[in-house]
Structure formats: C-alpha cells, structure tokens
C-alpha cells in the first residue's frame, strides 16, 4: 500500500531555510524525565529554530508529549533545562506576562466546560491571559478556524474535530510568536485535516508564528513541516530539514523468492522488511545494499528485481525508530 500514497511535493516557504532558522525559540539541554523506572525523556538536547513549522515525531512513548508538557510548565523535568524564547521554563508559570502571551499551546484533544459556548470559552481564556474582552479578536479567530457558525453553540455538542479547531483558536488568541500543537489533526476528517494543514502553514508563512507540532500522521508532517526531530525512547535520533531527511531515506523494493526466506534473512540481519504483494520493501541505507544482495544470494534466494523507490518521511521514521507505521489508508 505504501507505493500507492500520492505524496504531494513538500511545500517549503520562501526563506524557510535562511535567516529565520538562525535563532532558537526552544532549547533543551540534557532534559530528562523519569516516571518511576521509566525514562520518558533521556538527556534530550534539542534546538528548535525560530520561524517555520517544526515537527516532533516519534512512536508512542517516544517522549513527545512529555517534552511538550515540560515546555509548557505543566510538569517538572527530573534533570536538565528547557528554555523557551530565552527564558527558562518554570513550573506553575513564572508570572512573566509578556513571555506567556508570546506562546500558545494545544496539548492533545482539548476539553472545555460543556456548558460554555465556543465564544465564551475564548472570552474566558482571553481574560485568563490578561486580554480585555475584544469581540472583534474573538470573531476573527473563530472565523480563522472555521467555527463562526458554531460560535454560540455549547461545546458539549462539538465533535472532536471542532474541539481541535477551538483548541487551536485558544492557542492563537493571544497572537503568540510560538505555538505548540500536540496532534492538531487528531480526530479530524480529511477535509478538516486539509484545512488545518492550510491554517498551520499560513500561521508560519503569513503571521510569522513559529509552529511546533507533534503528530503521528507522517504524511501530514511531511506536507506541512519545514524541519523535524525524530525521537525514540526519550532520545533525539534524527533532526533536520524534511527535504534533507527524505533525500537520505530511500527504500529498496525487492522482488525475490521465496519471500519467507527473504524475510527470514532480513530478520537475521536486523532489518525489518515489509511484504508488499510478491515483493519486499526494505529500508536500508544505499551503501548497505550490495552486502544485502550478497547475503540473499548466499542463502539461495533468487533476486528477480531490485529497485530503489521514492522515499518519504515514513521510511525515514521507520529506519530511525525501528517501528512500522501502518498508513492511515489501511488502518
């Protein structure tokens, strides 16, 4: 199924690779968080540049949400330091009004008091952030996230997608310089995902907001992000421009038989092959391919065809994390 994915060209905004990435908006140094014996973050040192859309990827348990929660001051790190927009994050807020207004966030699917309307939620949180009630500002953000018609409906009747949109509006109500979004398209239907992608891209390109997001939807990340960090087991395993990562992450499509034997050889070699029809997709660096061919031939396997196929973020992700991501289309 992987080859059926229609990958659109990565949209890289003009200037995304230049001066906007010069200064870091988030920096973590040796960040560690343990829950009992589990190390959710393991000495993570990461520098997220100002400007553009930055994706944080990783399988479940990689530490993405823990990282975001530390950045937002919701939990304390066990060790290390997190610096957001030049200031060290302190749990419970630091009373730094200016810095807090410069950052917005949405962690997982947000929930709200069900008796409030979308408009009331925005007014409430504007007040909590020290903004005077400004109907025009509230209306503008409701429109931006596509909730104008539902503005005066109670949120108890909202779908997950609508809650996500409202969560994004809340993250943006203070017109911040930095927005952290955890799974912003979770629970959305395809048109909703597309609208959210357009919105996120416009935040970076039109409004100049730095967007940091985590998502399991690698295709979406590939389409919307300029740079990504791939995390696994609390550690940073890869970081860079999406275009650069893709260039290094090609896959080999092997038509060889018997397939069971091919998969067995790959398993012995520590690789994970994915069977696709009468072929096997192998994610390996290009220089290691000849050695793989020799090993297969030595095991008496007939290779009918070996072909490098287009890479995407998913293949890079699989290589770096050793996990298999099942495409959304067949989930």
């Amino acid at each position: 199924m992987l080859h059926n994915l229609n990958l659109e060209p990565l949209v890289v905004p003009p200037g995304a690779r230049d001066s906007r990435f010069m200064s870091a908006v988030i920096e973590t140094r040796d960040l560690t968080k343990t829950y009992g014996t589990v190390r959710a973050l393991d000495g993570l040192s990461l520098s997220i540049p100002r400007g553009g859309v930055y994706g944080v990827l990783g399988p479940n348990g990689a530490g993405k949400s823990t990282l975001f929660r530390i950045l937002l001051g919701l939990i304390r790190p066990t060790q290390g330091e997190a610096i957001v927009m030049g200031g060290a994050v302190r749990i419970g807020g630091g009373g730094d009004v200016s810095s807090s207004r410069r950052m917005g966030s949405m962690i997982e699917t947000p929930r709200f008091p069900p008796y409030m309307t979308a408009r009331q939620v925005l007014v409430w949180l504007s007040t909590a952030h020290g903004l005077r009630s400004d109907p025009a500002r509230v209306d503008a953000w409701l429109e931006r996230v596509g909730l104008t018609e539902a503005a005066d409906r109670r949120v108890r009747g909202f779908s997950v997608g609508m809650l996500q949109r409202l969560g994004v509006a809340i993250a943006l109500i203070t017109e911040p310089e930095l927005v952290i979004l955890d799974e912003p398209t979770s629970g959305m239907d395809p048109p909703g995902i597309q609208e959210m992608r357009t919105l996120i891209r416009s935040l970076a390109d039109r409004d100049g907001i730095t967007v940091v997001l985590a998502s399991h939807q690698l295709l979406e990340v590939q389409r919307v992000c300029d740079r990504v960090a791939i995390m696994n087991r609390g550690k940073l395993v890869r970081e860079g421009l999406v275009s650069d990562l893709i260039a290094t992450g090609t896959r080999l499509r092997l038509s060889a038989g018997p397939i069971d034997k091919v998969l067995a050889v790959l398993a012995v070699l520590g690789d994970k092959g994915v069977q696709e029809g009468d072929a096997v997709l192998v994610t390996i660096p290009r220089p290691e391919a000849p050695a793989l061919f020799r090993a297969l031939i030595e095991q008496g396997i007939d290779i009918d065809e070996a072909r490098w196929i287009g890479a995407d973020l998913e293949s890079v992700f699989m290589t770096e994390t050793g996990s298999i991501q099942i495409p959304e289309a067949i989930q």
Partner: protein
Amino acid sequence: MSITLLADSVLSEAYRLTRNRMAVFWSVLFVPALFVIGGITYHLITKGKTQGMAAVAGIPLTMGQQPVNLGEALNQGAGMGANGAILVFMLIGAATLYAGDYRWETFRLISARNSRVNLILGKVVVLKLLALAAMIAFLIASFIETVSQALVFARPLTFEFDGGDAGRFVLQWLLSWVRIVQYAMLALLTATLTRSLLAALFVPFVVGFAQSLLGGPGLAILGWEPQGWAAQLLLPGLAFETLKAAIAPAVPGPAQPDGLLIKSLISLTLWSLVPLAGALAWFNRQDLSKE
C-alpha cells in the same frame, strides 16, 4: 505575586462560573427561594389554623396589632447567612469552582501563564464573592419573608434599627461569610487532593455532618466540654455558634468564660487557613498534565 495576574485569575474564574447557570442557581438562589416559598406557605397555614382555632374557641385574634420589625429581619437574615442549607448548597458552587478544572482538564489551558498560587487564590476570591451573593440573596429572601408575614397576618411594618443593631448586623454578616468560606475550604482541599468534583462535593458534606453530630449529642458521648479546647478546635461549627451567640445572644444568659471567644476565633482561622495552605502546597507540586 502580581496583583494584575491575580486580578486576571479572579476575572476569568468569575466569568466562567457565571456562565454555569446551574451551579449559580443551586449555590446562590435555591436556598433563598425555598426560604421564601416555605416561609409564605408556613404563614398561610399558620393563619388558617389559628383562625380556625380562634373561631372554634370564640376568641378574637390579636396578632394583627403587633408590628413586624424589618430591622430585626435584617439581623436575622445576617445571622442565618451561614445556615446549614446554605453551607451544603454552597458546596455545589465550591466544587464546581475548585474541581472544575480537573473535571474538564482545563488547568493546562490556564496554568501556562499564571502562577499556581494565583490560580488557587483567584478561585478562593470568587468563592468569597459567590458566598457574598448567596448571603445577599438570603437577606433579600429574609426581607421578603418578613414582609409576607406582615401581609398574611395584616400586621403593620416598622423599621427599627439603631447603632447597636447596625454593629450586630455587620459582625453577624462577617461571621457568616467567614463560616461559609471556611466550610468551602474543605472542598478546595478535597478537590486538590482527589482531583474529583464528586469528592469535593461529598467529603465536606460528610465531614460537616459528622461535626454537627459531634457538636450535638456527640459532645456528651465523648465527654467533651462545649467550651473546651477539643470541642472548639475540632468543631468549627460549634466555634461559629459560640461567636454568633456572643454577638447576638438568642436569650440573655451568663457571661461566657474567659478565653472562649479566642478559642472559637482560633478554630475558625485554623479551619480556614490549614486547608488553604495544604491545597496550595499540594497544588504547587501537582502534575497538571494528568487530569
């Protein structure tokens, strides 16, 4: 602590709570409404029965000649501002206010900017305002009930309210306010410890009920002196009643023993501050991402 940030916390909590019509109705309006309806019903039934008995006995009714003093109604309203029904129903507002952010997982939305101390203090200030609203509503209800009494029994209305009455009114009002806020502190502590709205509602109710039992028949069973340290310190309701009796004694009686009022004041202060301090200490180290 920045006053601006605390003000933002108070304003946002007040805005949110006033959008919750059910919580406001049950904690502010329900008891006064019940008091008015119950009072008018009682007066009508009493009048009917009294007239019936007077007719049977052939005795003329003389009650109509006695005036109804609205000034006294004000003092009664202030004194009853922290009655059991108000305390219990105020728990609905307190639980909503103190545990709502756990229930709806909204602490993460408001905790990034403001300090945790401000978040809690903002809620406490709004609870104080809510208690004030409930007391004003009850005072109005008390006023209406008194007027209805005069109308039902065709008695004249007067308003006698001198300086002494005004002083008693202010002191009773303040005392009732302190008692409501003190009782609601149990909801704050419970909400913070358990992250549960239901626990914030029922734990203070059970504790208050147990304390009222101990303050009644329990005192004799335990062998506690009502004016002793143990009873005063462990039973804030008893301490409240002691102070209330000192301000406006129901019946003139012997002077209270030395030091009793101090014990009562210490009791109410401790029962207010210790839960608040406990909640603040716990909340400050709480992982708010696990709501």
